């Protein structure tokens, strides 16, 4: 069974059909790319998948479970984590705390124990610290656990956002333009990070990207969106050679 199975997804804003009859099937362990010109509806698809928008029609299944009309929070608990096009970190919190926010769903103690610092508090906080540090080590951020998230350089903020998403222990990771605003060096490093996440956590990833070097370099399969519709779908090499895709990107 496919990990993510989206069938006939549609949403309109007023008279605008932003996403029309969108289908996608992602198998476990795949690295899937979602591309398309500006305004094609890529981020709208992400917002539909994560419950920010509710679709007019269609069905979304994660690991066989219907998550179509669930809230963002429920979808996160079901196993989809995401990053944002414009980085959204918890700016005034430390790098460690950013990750610990992501861990909160798996490491629980009651509010009373939290306020009194009694009972399971010490033990669970210790476990959270260890797990967060282990995770940050993977992303090479373990040297800066006390730093404020907003004081990190841009590339590291991107990494921290991915680390925080990974802390929620997702089945599927959505990356919204992870290489936006990066120079070629940083993009290269980001590609290594994504490869590492796949290897370390055996993660299934769906990413939106404009950077063709990144897309052709790491994505196994692609879906091309144009004006809210799927233009082309399949293996990366074939899709990028498709004349329709070239037309959509470069014009006639």
């Amino acid at each position, binding site marked *: 069974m496919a990990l993510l199975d989206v069938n006939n997804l549609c949403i309109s804003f007023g008279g605008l059909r932003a996403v029309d009859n969108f289908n996608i099937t992602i198998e476990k362990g795949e690295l899937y790319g979602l591309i398309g010109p500006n305004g094609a509806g890529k981020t709208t698809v992400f917002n539909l998948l994560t419950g920010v928008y509710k679709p007019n029609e269609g069905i979304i299944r994660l690991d066989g479970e219907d998550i179509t009309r669930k809230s*963002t929070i429920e979808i996160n608990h079901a196993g989809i984590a995401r990053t944002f096009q414009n980085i*959204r970190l918890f700016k005034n919190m430390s790098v460690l705390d950013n990750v610990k*926010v992501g861990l909160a769903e798996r490491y629980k103690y009651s509010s009373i124990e939290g306020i009194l610092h009694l009972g399971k508090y010490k033990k669970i906080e210790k476990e959270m610290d260890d797990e967060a540090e282990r995770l940050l080590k993977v992303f090479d951020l373990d040297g800066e656990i006390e730093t404020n998230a907003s004081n990190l350089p841009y590339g590291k903020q991107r990494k921290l956002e991915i680390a925080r*998403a990974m802390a929620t222990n997702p089945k599927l990771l959505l990356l919204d333009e992870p290489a936006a605003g990066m120079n070629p060096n940083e993009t290269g490093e980001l590609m290594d990070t994504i490869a590492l996440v796949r290897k370390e956590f055996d993660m299934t990833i769906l990413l939106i990207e404009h950077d063709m070097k990144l897309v052709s370099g790491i994505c196994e399969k692609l879906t091309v969106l144009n004006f809210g519709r799927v233009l082309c779908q399949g293996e990366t090499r074939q899709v990028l050679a498709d004349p329709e895709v070239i037309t959509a990107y470069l014009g006639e």
Partner: protein
Amino acid sequence: MKKQTKNNLITYAIVIAAYIILEILMLTGNLSSHMKGLLVPMTYYAIIAVALNLCVGILGELSIGHCGFMCIGAFTSAFFSRATSESLPAAPRFIIALLIGIASAALFGFLIGIPVLRLKGDYLAIVTLAFGEIIKNVINAFYVGIDAKGLHFSMKSAMELNMDGGDTIVNGAMGITGTPHDANFTIGIVLLLISLFVVQNLVNSRDGRAIMAIRDNYIAAEATGINVTSYKMMAFTISAAIAGAAGVLFSHNITTLTASSQYFGYNASIMILVYVVLGGIGNIRGSVIAACILYLLPELLRGFSTYRMLIYSIVLIVMMIVNWSPKVIEWRKRTFGRIGAGRRKAA
């Protein structure tokens, strides 16, 4: 020891040290009776500043009606203490009154939070402002009496209570008279320490991190699986409860409790917001220190008579510059940072 734990301990130490110094001054007779009268108010203003900082600094929602919660805590607890002033001994009576004050303020915080926390920024400020005024005005028109048949309520006048002898406890705009003086400086300090304990521990827990995550970016918080609504409610309710505790101290420190603008109006709420802003938003220790200094200052400046408020405002401006101006912060780091660095090397 973690940096955060150490920071918390320093805050407790400062409060306890201030308490010991003031107690010694009092015992050796170095404190004027005027100053002695200021000590309990100082503690309850520090407590409500801590409560407001939880709402403004940690949760990131601007509330300018926090005196409304203080008002509720003050009146419910004073009502209880006044009604049972003859039947209960002082200690258990005050403890029960305290719990009643905290619980009713928390209840109102919860109920008001349901509609209000859907709003953001300026809108939330406007609604909380209105709420504070509504509480004050409703209590001003509220009459409650007690006689052999039980409780009587009216919103018109004391006559409308139709009482059979008995005792009018809440007398409209004249408020509650004759609340026993159960609060003192020691109780105030203990409550301040408890409030600090609750808020500082909350900040360093799972719930506290979730609350701060909502403040920093609620879209990302939702996407990270945090239940934004329930954590907002939690922080707002705890904040209201602590403000209620401040109200209990307030009402058990004065003989006549009235819902006057001087203590519960929007001016008073903004005064507390000034303590929080000047002490540093999100900085709990700063709130306590700012509340104490800024509460005592106008009283200590009485010698300057006409120029009192002028000097007070200059102090506010200077504090603002010292705490927030980037240039001054840089200068402070250069001058005092070196001393600190030297000391660290020596250690």
